[in-house]
């Protein structure tokens, strides 16, 4: 899956904005939004929040977890533990990128947050690489990856499944007399 498709899914998450215009309730296919009144916070999906921000029609309020102390705690815990710690939002990476790129003026200590999230991401990806390596070398048949986000899974997903499939093909071809019925793979 393309990273932009993971971002597409992340854009459905709700975030609070403060509009500077007024509009009655909107009845979208996916649910109702609004009504919008200047100065009053309202929850909208990220794709709409970003669009409104780009047209200078609102101010975005950072989500609760996008806070320096919280992220520092998470980063420390991630570095200490060998397993993956649960993180506050399943789309933390995408939301950080989207909100910091378009609304950094609405988010206090934006640069620090960017660094903290990147550090946490790097630690998690390093752990993921190690566990993928041991999965392959010990020829496991099953793995449980509860606390991984979609973006992290997607980063190694295609590579991991393709290589596991190749190894399976090589392994089954070693067994004599097995009817494969396969010819060339494009």
């Amino acid at each position, binding site marked *: 899956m393309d990273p932009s498709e993971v971002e597409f899914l992340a854009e459905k998450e709700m975030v609070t904005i403060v509009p500077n215009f007024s509009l009655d309730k909107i009845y979208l*296919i996916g649910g109702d939004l609004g009504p919008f009144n200047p100065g009053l916070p309202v929850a909208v999906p990220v794709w709409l929040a970003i669009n409104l921000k780009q047209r200078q029609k609102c101010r975005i309020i950072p989500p609760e977890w996008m806070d320096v102390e919280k992220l520092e705690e998470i980063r420390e815990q991630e570095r200490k533990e060998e397993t993956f710690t649960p993180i506050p939002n399943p789309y933390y990476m995408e939301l950080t990128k989207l909100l910091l790129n378009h609304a950094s003026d609405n988010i206090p200590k934006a640069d620090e947050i960017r660094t903290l999230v990147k550090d946490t991401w790097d630690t998690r990806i390093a752990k993921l690489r190690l566990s993928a390596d041991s999965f392959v070398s010990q020829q496991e048949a*099953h793995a449980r990856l509860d606390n991984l986000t979609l973006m992290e899974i997607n980063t190694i997903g295609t590579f991991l499944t393709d290589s596991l499939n190749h190894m399976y093909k090589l392994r089954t071809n070693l067994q004599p007399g097995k009817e494969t019925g396969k010819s060339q793979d494009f």
Partner: protein
Amino acid sequence: MAESLVEMSDSEDESQELMTPAELVTKLEEIWLNEKFSPELLENKSEIVECVMEQLNHMEENLQRVKGVDLRAGVHRMETERIRYVLSSYLRSRLQKIEKYFPHILEKEKSRAEGDPSYLSPEEFAFAKEYLANTETYLKSVALKHMPPNLQAVDLGKSVLKPNLDSFVFLRVKQRQDNILVEPETDEQREYAIDLEEGSQHLMRYRTIAPLVASGAVQLI
């Protein structure tokens, strides 16, 4: 408008499932992801596709009537674009798989029992048959007719790749399942059973969990 329920009729047992439009869109995204990550062509969900098309057309009609550039119309348009993207990506995945595995898919469709759900919509079936006919004609006219007469037959069922049901897939569990058998990789290992807890994510072979994907108990990610 969002309060109205969408009726979906199930052609096999004539039952009608009522879903809100929001649930419909969520369901569309679920089948989109399942189709994307599954190594084989999944059951045809034409009811969902038709309902989504209906919603989109309905919205388009309403938008046509609104004149000028309006904030509200813009928001509706953005949403319909997003839904349209998911729908076309879903249909594109299916077409890619049909093109890749066409002899096996047509075989499966021919041999399925009367009451079983179909894998192809009528349009997809016509597409698959045409693709088969075109491939055969192409091979004949480019190579086969120049071969000695006793070698002019080609068995597409043997020469086209079968979908690899033993591929590994990532999945998230939506309904708890007990005692799923995990087959061993090497000869030294023994098979063991695991329980799939709700909300957990796993990496395993597609073959064992294929029926769970069809029933909606797990979601491929």
